[in-house]
């Protein structure tokens, strides 16, 4: 199916403030690539009409330069200024016979580095987590770090968990199974909300360490999101995403009063994110 594209805000105007995530990300990425001196990169962006005019543009690039500097610091702490090793290709076979083939980039002496020039959400964590599992399953037992920015534009380096190769293969196998299930029927998995949910669970588990499996779980992340998309008629959260709206039409995605859906929501989120969420909570209180 092809869904209609959302119209952007008046594209006829020159940018007056690079507020949207994409422009910010492009600015920061461009500056990050130009270690230190970024005047060329900025000139290009300005010529592309991505920067506001005059002093407003200076301000925008100044803010982007700060973000890039904060991020670069994290990157340098990991790479020590070295260039990444060349990409290697890797093929692994899981116990159920699934063969996964791919290549690993961003390899440094200290391990794998993933960089996100913006705030981290579930999608980025999932990407990095899959890379980490894949690398470890293929015999590269090295740490994987995701460098990114906080919502206050500080740098952040999240070290993903480092399971044993056997554990990594088992986890990968579970994720592949989930992926296959999703190809056959709608999977109640929403990367951003599920990541939030998993982190909230990990936080609570940290406080009450004796929370056993099967104990009632807190769905407040999903409930809040559902309430928001109810109230805010034109919110752009994952529940109101047009594709999700079509697939799940008529179902209350918060899992309120729908025990089966609630179970699935929780299960999908914890299968994918429990391990990284625990690591996250340990590293950032």
């Amino acid at each position: 199916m092809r869904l209609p594209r959302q119209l952007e805000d008046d594209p006829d105007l020159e940018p007056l403030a690079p507020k949207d995530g994409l422009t910010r990300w492009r600015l920061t990425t461009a500056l990050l690539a130009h270690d230190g001196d970024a005047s060329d990169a900025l000139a290009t962006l300005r010529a592309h009409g991505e920067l506001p005019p005059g002093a407003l543009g200076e301000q925008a690039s100044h803010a982007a330069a700060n973000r890039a500097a904060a991020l670069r610091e994290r990157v340098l702490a990991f790479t020590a200024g070295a260039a990444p090793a060349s990409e290697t290709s890797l093929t692994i076979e899981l116990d159920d016979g699934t063969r996964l083939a791919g290549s690993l980039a961003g390899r440094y002496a200290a391990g794998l580095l993933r960089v996100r020039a913006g705030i981290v959400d579930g999608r980025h964590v999932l990407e990095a987590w899959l890379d980490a599992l894949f690398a470890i399953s293929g015999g590269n037992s090295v740490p994987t770090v995701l460098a990114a920015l906080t919502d206050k534009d500080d740098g952040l380096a999240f070290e993903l968990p480092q399971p044993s190769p056997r554990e990594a293969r088992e986890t990968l196998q579970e994720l592949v199974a989930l992926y296959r299930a999703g190809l056959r029927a709608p999977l109640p998995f929403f990367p951003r909300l599920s990541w939030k949910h998993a982190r909230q669970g990990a936080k609570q588990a940290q406080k009450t360490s004796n929370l056993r499996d099967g104990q009632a779980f807190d769905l407040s992340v999903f409930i809040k999101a559902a309430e928001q998309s109810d109230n805010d008629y034109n919110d752009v959260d994952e529940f109101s995403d047009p594709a999700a709206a079509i697939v799940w039409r008529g179902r209350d995605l918060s899992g309120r009063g729908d025990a089966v859906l609630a179970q699935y929501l929780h299960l999908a989120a914890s299968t994918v994110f429990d391990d990284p969420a625990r690591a996250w909570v340990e590293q950032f209180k």
Partner: protein
Amino acid sequence: MSAPRNALDLPLSGVRVVEASAGTGKTFAIATLYLRLVLEQALTPEQIVVATFTRAATAELSSRLRERLRLASQLLVQPDPAMPRDDDNGDTTVTRAVIAQALSLEGVDAAVLQHRARDAERAMDTAMIGTLHGFCNRVSSEFGFETGHALTPPELLDDLRTLQNEIVDDFWRAGSADADAARVLTQTWGSPRALSRQATDPRWRGREITLDETTPETMQMLREQRGAALAWLDALRNSIAGWNDATMREADTELAACFPNKSARASRVRGLRAVRGWAISSMASWPPSGVVDKAAESFSPDAVRALSTCPRPPQGPAFQAMIDLGKTFADLHTLDAAASVHVLRDERAFLERELPARLRGLGKIGHDQAVDELARALDDTKRGARAIDAIRKRWPAALVDEFQDTDPAQWRILQKLFVHDAGTLVLVGDPKQAIYGFRGGDVHAYLAARACADGEPMRLEISQRAGAVVDDAINALFSRENAFAESAIAHPDVRAAPRIARRALLLDGRSAPGLQLWRLPPSGKTKKDGAGLPWNKSDAQRILEKACVTRIVELLAAAHAGGAQLRDGDGALRPLVAGDLAVLVNDNAQAYSMQRALSEAGVPAASCLRASVYASEEAGDLLLLLEALRDPTDARRARAAQASLLIGKDARQIAISLCDTAALDTLLDQTANWADQVERHGPLAWLHGLIAQAAPRLLAMPGGERRVANYLQLAELLQQQADACFGIDDLCDVHARALADADANAEGDAARLRLETDAQAVQIATVHAAKGLEYGVVLLPYAALGKQIKKRKPALTWYHEDNRARVAIGEGVTETIAARADDELLAEEVRKFYVGVTRTCAACVLPWGWVNQGLHSAAHWLLHTAGRAAPLAFDDAGCAQALEDLRLRAPQAIAIEALPAGPAGRLTRLRGDDHVLRARRFDGRIERDWWTWSFSRLVRGESRGSNSDPRPGAGDEMAIADADSPTANIQNLSTLAGSRFGSAVHAALERADFSLWHGVTTAPETQRDLLERSLRAQGLPRAATVSLERAIEIAGDCVSNALNAPLSCGTRLCEIAPERRRAELEFHLRLAPTRVGDLFALMHAHGYQRGRNGVGAERLNGLLTGVIDLVFEHADRYHLVDYKTNLLPAYDTESLRAAIDVHDYDLQYLLYTLALHRWLQRALHGYDYETHIGEVYYLFVRDPRGILRDRPARELIEAMDALFDARGEARA
């Protein structure tokens, strides 16, 4: 002097105030006062201004006034009309009393009064009943000569947001030239939209700003201070960059000694590292990242002192540097905040300057600008005084309703216009119901007006709405000291009128309390020490909604079983139905939430909200369908359309088309078929079919009625848009654009969500939407939730000081001002709460309990604070005490119960479901001979037909051209005769720059383009007739002849400046039933229209419309011009006269002169026919000699005026 007791007592002179508590029959009183003005003072509706706040209220008020006049007119034909009769109802009783009072005046009898009432009822269509804004705009245009809009009144623009945003964008752009401004803009607001939200707040209007002027010196000082702080910061940063590992180790040791608490120490260790990292990084010094900023702050002496576990502050150069750093950061924050305040004020000043200027450029005006411009015009010492004089003569009396929602500017205008020796101004309102502060309404303006009134205000205290049990409860709630958090507003006890006193909700035959209080249970959450905690807001909201639904289901189920009834004032009982119940909410979010909860319980609910239908899911759904129609061969889009809710196919059905080619063909055929339907019959026809098919499925879903209503509304909107669109592609884009702008659309009437059902449904409405309405049972579930106002930067605070509206920004917001502003906000909350409670006729439900932020609610003020020596504690016990105190004030009317908990049942079926809707029977009378007349219709003698196009150069010329074109010597030009050519020349004359044609014989080079466009717009010249060059030449000759014709008044049109002339002056005159014979007799007597005796109809009745080609002013006289492109055999006076006779042009210019006469009479101060009416010029523009002039006699025009006004009989 004692206060007048009712509308019969109120003296009808000077400034009078009527203060009407909710539901005390305010409109009834206004109708009585209106009737008194008509009967006692012999005023006509055209002389009385009736103004109110909203357009909806206008319609309601107008019909009530008309009914009252009709009633009076009917009563006055009865013998002894003032004598009360046994079967009189409330309206009749009061009307008879008004009649009696009027009859007691000298020189008045029932026949005179009957005439007054009947004439007034007939004249209601032209009565000035509207909003205050509308009145101001009407004054501006009617008194255009005095108010500066003489010849081109601007068009009223409802929504200024687009223009305002444009202006803010431009201000933002200007920031690109100045590094300081750019920094402040980006740091404080981030985007122009955020700045726009603050700068365009309607509350800015007319406020004085509590801030010193921005002088270049202060700006310079700020810059210098900032420069110094930055230099100091760089120095500090350099020294911190010099910290080596030993420094850090020492610092760690010191930290360990001073911060035994682990987390306090750890955060400072991290902070020190972050600051060092910042110092050696390439990041800019200012502003620092959040972590660095916070780290510096955590070492400030205050922060360290606040830590009880810290034995002593850390010592050493590193920590001194951190303290200095914190101070410098704080200084810079303060300086930036000060700069942002100045920027915001500059922006506001820019907006105030630019908005009127840009509106003028567009020929438009906003509501507020109309008020401002009028105020300015009236302030003008010379012209303003003349205007005031004229307006006072035109409207000697004004009744202003909902006056509590006025603002100071409107009050100043009313004062100027109506406060004088011979004027009457009645201000009707209720300060307790002033709830539009957020939109610029200012209850203080009301209070100021009240203070200026003559005599005591008349207070209406007898409720015509709520039964006695509800009134007792309302008195218990509001009749207490300082209940409205504003000393000038008090609640007088209300009592129910005898006819409605028995109104109540009966449960199992027993009268339910007027106010049912629900006590929230304790939240069950406790602190570590066991002390209780309040409910958090979202949990409280959930249990309140659930309780509300439970109670509604119980009530409706009981009603079905005969156990819940409403008793009316006369004791009559009827079962409670869903439509009697209303849930009042504060905002749209609460309304959606409530509606969802109700529909889950199977309760039909209808909401009356100000939200755009484009923000609904259905709007997005229709986009899926439209996208598919764009390219009916695109299978993927077609499948997406099938998945839309309106079509409602599930995945299995859609998937079939992926593997079955026959299914795919069917799918694509259907899509193509749809596209075809839209192309042929429009989207409405197509969608109606689809909606009808889907309706059974949709209506079975929760909220299905809402969905169907939305689809229907969207279908209509699409149809409207389709008329202006080029095909489906364009329509699709327009629809998508509307979706993207859904927020901005919420104000437009067409896109606002409609009520989804006419069937019996629980009403959900915001308090603002419910104002003026009433319901049997009112539930206020959200009254227990307070809301803390979010503070934005820079702080903007709206408040009053010495009765003047002010705004404080940034540092101007002192603690006193902030407290005062909070009080004013609270006062408005209390008023809103009052409006909510007083919607009740029979019973009201109000929950209360200990909920987070409940402190900011109106209920907290009333229950815990107002009228108490010391406020009651806000906790579980305090809340219970507050409820009990309230109950004791009116134990017979108020009851307390625990929050209904029980399982929320589902409502199965409601009585009245099968109720079939029928169209109402029309038994009015339509005047059959009411027509819109134009000159051309008159001369064609049609009394019916559709073509009454009054466009000059069209209608009349067509007849002319047919008659004249085959003249022998001009055959080669035949294509340049006729109505098209006439229209082209008229168009060129309308737009021509007159001065360029001064003394020229051929078209000036710069005007050739205009001529060409005018001709082409009419499809001229037609192929293979004359060349374009030749056509332009001929048209140019016509224009030149017209503009250079020497006029007998001593000028030529090319010498008349644009501001002294007006092209295409359109007029609409009311035609009272006029006998055609009388009209012609009159004209014959003055030597006009001799060849004609009638127009094919016996009577003229309705409206006369027309457009005058040009009116210009020369030497204080107003002259009329009509251009004629007729081809005549010759252009000597005799031939021109012949043409005039043949085409009845004399009738035309008599009508035009009459129109001009009426207009000037109304618009020009001191108008006199002999002094001000000039000549009529008919310019036959084909020839320079084609000038015919006339000046109809004053007697003729005045007699025609009287005839058309139905005053003819009196004169004849």
